[in-house]
């Protein structure tokens, strides 16, 4: 394994972790980190605290020097001014990677920026690698190892299902909040890496690693500022050939270069250039953090769209019209079905006599036959060759009643190899009951009309990109 690979091995699959600044004081990060590690059933925990003694049954080492040989990963949770000293001790002890959770560096003030420079100097001199400072740590949902320094993640431990989406976040607390929301709406994560101030390891390096990670099929990135834009583009261009990358960037300065002497310079805002890099690098850039989550969910469950023709089955005419407008904005089409298919839909009992059999297919008012109608029309549209993917708009009982029927016959729907999305809304209780059932069989449910359309567009963007790669 190359040197870079081994950094991530020590970050994501460590054998032992020293927790420098471990604490018995409830609510502190030094306490929470130990609890998170214990609950991960992780066995190589080495708390470090000058007081020594024991902590939750673990032996506490009074100093870094006292640690046994062979510990290669550390989390540093000390006050900022004590971090450089601790980092140097770690390097001397043979620790290869340190996660610095402490804040109070460049993000704070000039004094903090000086401390961060001191860290850089130690990194340069000793070769130790650093994640952070000011980061929330790392979570490996596949192995269950949680070494974040917050209680938030632990609160939804029961709901987390290991999956194939990995998340690179520059924001700490909001990153964890997005992870939590993601889990609640059905995203199954593989790795979560919080970058913090990026003194050393940045999104580019993590992206490169995740590109090669067999447990990652979709990469989600939340970016605040970028230091190595050109390199990000180069790496993204390679990684996106293998798996989709979805990016959301905040702080898209609309104004151009300061003191530009040309028109071009005055127009070259950072957001615009980032968007250009995404387009050329095959990165799907989204417009909101919620869209980032939903688009990743859709990528994790569904194949890309091989063409731009969308079939719609709905029990709400109004919502269907709204979706059609939005799909059109994204360059997707909702073609009228052929006369033959229109006739078959009615004859084979997929659409009632009083329904609309064109596209959108409108099943109209609530009926106990919804399960059959939704299932049959979905299947017939997918099989027809007249559309490249389908959107099921399911409102109220339209979402509730067909769930068993769709789950039962899902393999036949999936066999067509075309994406299926649900735009669904119902009472919160109904949603909580049925959405996981759909998503357990890989059919994503999105409750926001714009984001549903955006997700379809993302599937098409990816399909077009993959099509281009094959040429």
């Amino acid at each position, binding site marked *: 394994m190359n040197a870079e690979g081994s950094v991530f091995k020590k970050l994501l699959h460590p054998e032992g972790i020293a927790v420098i600044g471990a604490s018995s004081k409830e609510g502190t990060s030094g306490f929470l980190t130990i609890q998170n590690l214990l609950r991960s059933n992780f066995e190589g925990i080495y708390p470090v605290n000058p007081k020594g003694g024991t902590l939750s049954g673990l032996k506490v080492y009074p100093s870094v020097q006292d640690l046994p040989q062979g510990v290669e990963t550390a989390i540093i949770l000390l006050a900022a001014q004590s971090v450089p000293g601790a980092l140097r001790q770690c390097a001397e002890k043979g620790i290869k990677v340190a996660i610095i959770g402490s804040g109070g560096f460049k993000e704070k003030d000039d004094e903090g920026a000086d401390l961060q420079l001191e860290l850089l100097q130690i990194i340069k001199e000793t070769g130790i690698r650093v994640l952070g400072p000011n980061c929330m740590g790392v979570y490996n949902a596949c192995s269950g190892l949680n070494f974040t320094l917050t209680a938030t993640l632990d609160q939804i431990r029961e709901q987390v299902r290991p999956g194939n989406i990995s998340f690179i976040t520059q924001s700490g607390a909001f990153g964890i909040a997005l992870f939590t929301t993601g889990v609640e709406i059905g995203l199954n994560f593989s790795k979560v890496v919080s970058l913090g101030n990026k003194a050393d390891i940045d999104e580019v390096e993590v992206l490169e690693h995740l590109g090669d990670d067999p447990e990652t099929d979709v990469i989600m990135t939340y970016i605040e500022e*970028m*230091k*190595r*834009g*050109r390199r990000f*583009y180069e790496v993204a261009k390679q990684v996106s050939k293998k798996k989709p990358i979805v990016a959301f960037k905040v702080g898209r300065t609309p104004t151009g*270069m300061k003191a*530009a*002497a*040309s*028109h*071009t*310079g005055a*127009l*070259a805002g*950072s957001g*615009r*250039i*980032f*968007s*250009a*890099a995404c*387009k*050329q690098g095959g990165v799907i850039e989204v417009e909101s953090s919620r869209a980032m989550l939903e688009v990743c969910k859709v990528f994790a469950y569904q194949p890309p769209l091989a063409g731009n023709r969308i079939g719609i089955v709905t029990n709400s005419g109004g919502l269907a019209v709204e979706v059609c407008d939005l799909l059109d904005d994204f360059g997707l089409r909702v073609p009228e079905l052929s006369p033959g298919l229109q006739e078959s839909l009615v004859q084979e009992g997929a659409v009632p006599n009083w329904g609309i059999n064109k596209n959108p297919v409108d099943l109209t008012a609530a009926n106990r036959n919804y399960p059959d109608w939704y299932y049959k029309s979905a299947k017939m549209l997918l099989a027809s060759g007249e559309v490249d993917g389908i959107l099921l708009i399911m409102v109220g009982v339209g979402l509730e009643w067909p769930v068993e029927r769709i789950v039962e016959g899902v393999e036949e729907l999936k066999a067509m190899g075309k994406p299926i999305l649900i735009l669904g809304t119902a009472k919160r209780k109904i949603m909580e009951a049925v959405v996981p059932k759909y998503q357990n069989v890989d059919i994503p449910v999105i409750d926001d009309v714009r984001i549903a359309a955006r997700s379809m567009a993302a599937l098409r963007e990816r399909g077009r990109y993959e099509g281009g790669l094959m040429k």
Partner: protein
Amino acid sequence: MSSVNIIIAGAQREGNSILSELEAKEILKEYGIPVVGGDLATSEDEAVQLAAGFGYPVVLKVVSPQITHKSDSGGVKLNLKDAGEVLRAYREIMAKALENCPGAEIKGVVVQPMARPGRELVIGAVQDSQFGPVVMFGLGGIFVEVLKDVSFRLAPVDHSEALDMLREIKGYRLLEGLRGELPCDLEAILNIIIRLSNLIYDYRDEVSEIDINPLFAYHDGAIAIDARIILKS
């Protein structure tokens, strides 16, 4: 050493960060970008002589390292149809330059043939601090100034990336020709975008900004009317 290197080295030696229009066009030409030719006249007689050589109508533009926005300071005269108009224009430009930019070093005027009207475009390039060399495309006039209807890509770009840049702008249909107009020569435009992206990439250590503004696009071909190149300081 290529003529591009010679021009850049010369400007650096003299401490000029903004190349003259003629120098900028010389560099574009070296990269195969068509430009409206021109020559420097240092006297009114020379201006008349050059104009006769190019054939009327002609354009006169002030040349001064200190005057960067030539038209704002009355330094550009268009569509001059005979020797008398050229003489008058020369004198007016000199007077305006003295009045608006006292102390500016006036090297003379550029005399160039008046290009036939075409679809006005802007093609530019800059070094972005994070993403390095990038290239920009847009429609000229209000489209770029007010609507900021432009597209960017990281340089260098290939043919399909350049085509994406054209299609991305809202005004793309104007290039295809509206209501019976002939379409613009898209291949000629793409060619210029690609070549400019190569230029900004090759000279990423020396050049900080380039504007071709305007570029006129025709049914057959496209040509840089004015150009500006700014070096890194």
